[in-house]
C-alpha cells in the first residue's frame, strides 16, 4: 500500500501542474477553460508522435513551449478577448467558446489519431529504483514525471516573481486597471499568460503520455481532475493547488489499489460532491467562486 501512496504522490505533482494551468487561466483571464483536458490530450499525442521517431517523449517538452505559447497567445487575442469584450454576457460565452474548442479538439483527435489506445515509449521504461528497506519500487518514469512536475512549478514561481513579465502578470492579477495605468499592455500580457497556461497543461500531457493510455476521449478525465483541484484549492491559491494535486493523485492510486480502476472517476467525483456541498469556495483557502 505504501507503493500506492508513493505512486499517488508522484502523479499528484503532475496533477498540480494541470490545476495550476487552469487556475492561472481562471484567476487572471476569467476564462474557465473547459478544454483543459483536451489540451492535455494534444500534449499526450505530441509525446506519442515524438516517440514514433524512437525519441524519448520528454524531449518534446521544450518543443511544447515553442508550439503552445504562440498558439495560446493567438487564441486569447483573437477569440477569447473578443468574446469577453463583445457582449454583456461575456463570461458565459467564454464557457461556450472553450467548450467549442474542447469539442473541436476531441473531434480532430478522433479523426487524425484514431481511437486506438497508444502510449509513448520512453527509454526509461522498465527501469526502476528499488528501495529495499521500505520495500517499494519507484519506476523511473514516474519519478521523472514527478520531478518534471516539481520543476515546472518552481520554474513558474520563479518566473512570476523574478522576471519583468512575471511581475506584470502579478500586477494584472492584483488590479487590472491599475496595471493598465502603469503602462502594462494587458492584452498582450494576458495573451502570453494564456499561452503559458496552455504550455504547462500540454507539458503535463506529454509527461502523462509516457505511462498512461492515450486516446482522444482522455480529455474528459483530466478536465474533471483539473476542476476537482481548483475547487478543492480555491482559485488562484498556488499552495492549495499543489496540495489539491497531490490529494487527487493519492485518491486515484489508492482507489485503484483498494477497489479497481473503474471506480476512480466516481470516487473523485463523490469527493468533489461532498466538497461542493460543504464549502464551494475551496477548502484550503476561500477563493472567489
Amino acid at each position, binding site marked *: 500500500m505504501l507503493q500506492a501512496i508513493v505512486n499517488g504522490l508522484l502523479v499528484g505533482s503532475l496533477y498540480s501542474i494541470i490545476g495550476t494551468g487552469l487556475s492561472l487561466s*481562471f484567476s487572471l483571464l476569467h476564462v*474557465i477553460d*473547459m478544454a483543459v483536458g483536451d489540451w492535455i490530450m494534444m500534449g499526450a499525442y505530441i509525446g506519442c508522435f515524438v516517440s514514433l521517431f524512437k525519441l524519448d517523449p520528454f524531449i518534446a517538452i521544450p518543443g511544447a513551449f515553442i508550439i503552445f505559447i504562440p498558439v495560446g497567445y493567438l487564441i486569447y487575442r483573437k*477569440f477569447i478577448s*473578443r*468574446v469577453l469584450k*463583445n*457582449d*454583456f*454576457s461575456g*463570461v*458565459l*460565452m*467564454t*464557457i*461556450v*467558446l472553450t*467548450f*467549442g*474548442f*474542447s*469539442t*473541436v*479538439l*476531441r*473531434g*480532430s483527435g*478522433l*479523426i487524425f489519431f484514431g481511437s486506438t489506445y497508444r502510449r509513448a515509449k520512453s527509454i526509461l521504461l522498465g527501469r526502476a529504483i528499488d528501495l529495499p528497506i521500505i520495500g517499494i519500487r519507484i519506476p523511473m518514469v514516474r519519478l521523472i514525471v514527478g520531478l518534471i512536475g516539481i520543476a515546472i512549478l518552481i520554474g513558474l514561481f520563479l518566473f512570476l516573481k523574478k522576471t519583468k513579465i512575471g511581475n506584470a502578470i502579478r500586477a494584472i492579477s492584483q488590479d487590472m486597471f491599475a496595471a493598465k495605468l502603469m503602462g502594462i499592455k494587458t492584452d498582450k500580457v494576458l495573451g502570453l499568460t494564456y499561452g503559458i497556461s496552455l504550455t504547462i497543461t500540454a507539458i503535463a500531457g506529454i509527461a502523462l503520455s509516457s505511462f498512461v493510455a492515450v486516446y482522444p476521449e482522455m480529455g*474528459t478525465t483530466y*478536465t*474533471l481532475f483539473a*476542476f476537482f483541484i481548483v*475547487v478543492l484549492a480555491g482559485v488562484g491559491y498556488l499552495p492549495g493547488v499543489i496540495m489539491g494535486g497531490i490529494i487527487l493523485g493519492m485518491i486515484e492510486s489508492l482507489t485503484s489499489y483498494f477497489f479497481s480502476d*473503474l471506480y476512480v*472517476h*466516481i470516487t473523485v*467525483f463523490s469527493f*468533489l*460532491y461532498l466538497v*461542493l*456541498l460543504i464549502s*464551494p469556495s475551496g477548502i484550503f483557502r476561500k477563493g*472567489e*467562486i
Partner: protein
Amino acid sequence: MLKVPKNNINRIVLVLLCIFLIILPFNKSLNRYWIRIITSVFMWICLAQSWNIIGGYCGRLNFGASVFFGVGAYTTGALMKAGIPFLLTLPICSIFSAILAIIIGLPTLKLRGAYFAIATWAFAEVLKETATLIPYIGGTSGLPLPPVLQPELFYFLMFIVMIVTNLHVHFINKGKLGYELKAIREDEDVAEVIGVDTFKVKLKAFILSAIYPGICGGIFAQWLTYIFPTDVFSGFRTDEMIIMVLLGGKGTVIGPIIGAIFFIGFKELIWTQFASSSFYIIFLGLFFVFVALFIPDGIYGVVRGKKVSTLRRDIIKNTKYFLGNIISKKED
C-alpha cells in the same frame, strides 16, 4: 409587448399550425420517414426549450442536461422490465428527474456560472459511467424494451410534451418566475438585494428544466426500444440541446424552436454529405465557437437587431412594472 391585433394573428397562425401537425400523420400517403423526422424535431424542441429555462432565462449553462434525459430513459426501461405499463412510467420519470435535479442542484447552484457549467458536466460524465456499472439495467450492452407497433403514438406523445413545455416556458416568460430568473441572470447579487430568493428560484428553474427531458427520455426509450448509456447519457445530446438554444436565441420563447428546426435541418443536410461522425463532432464544436464569437444572442437576436438586446429592453420594461409594485407597497 406586441400590440393586440398582431397577437391575435400570431395565435391564430399557431393554432392552425397545430391542427395541421395533428392531422398530418393521418395522411397515409406520407412517407413514414417524415413522421419520424418531425417526431424527433418535436423532441428536440422540447429538450431545447427546457434547457432554455435554466440556461437562457437563468443564465446558468447546464452542460450536463443529458443526465435527465438518460435518467428518464432508464427509468422507463427499468420499470418496464419490472412489468409496469409504458404510459404509467412517464410520470415516474418526471419525479425521478426532479429528485435528481435536487440532488445535483444542491451543491452546484451555489456556484458561479462558469463553475456550474463544469460541475454539471462532471455530473453527467460520472453518471454515464455509473450507468454502465449497474447490471440490472444492462450495463454497457444496453437495455432492450418491448416493441410497440404504432410509430404514430410517439408522434402524438412528443407533440403533447412539446406543446406543454412551450406553453410552460411562455407563461414563465410572462410571469413572476421569469422576471426573477432574468434578474438572477443579469446580476445575482442585485437580485438578492431586491428580494429574490435566488437559491430557491434557481432550484425551481433547475427542476423544471429537468422534468421535461425526463419524460422525453422515457418516450425516447420506448420509441427506440433499445437504449444504452453512451447514447442516452451522451454529451453530444447535451451539446446539441445547447447549440439549438444558443443558435435560436437564448432566453426567448421562440429561440429554441427556431434553433431546433434550423439545427435539425442543417444536420440532415450535412449528414448526407459527410457520413463520418468525427467530422460531425468538429462541426458541432465549430458551431459553438461561431455562436460565441458572432451571434451570442442567436438568430432571434440577429433578426431583432444587435444594437439593443431585446432581453435588456425586456428587463428594463419589466423592472419598471415590478419595482413600481414593490415601492408602492413599501410606502404603506
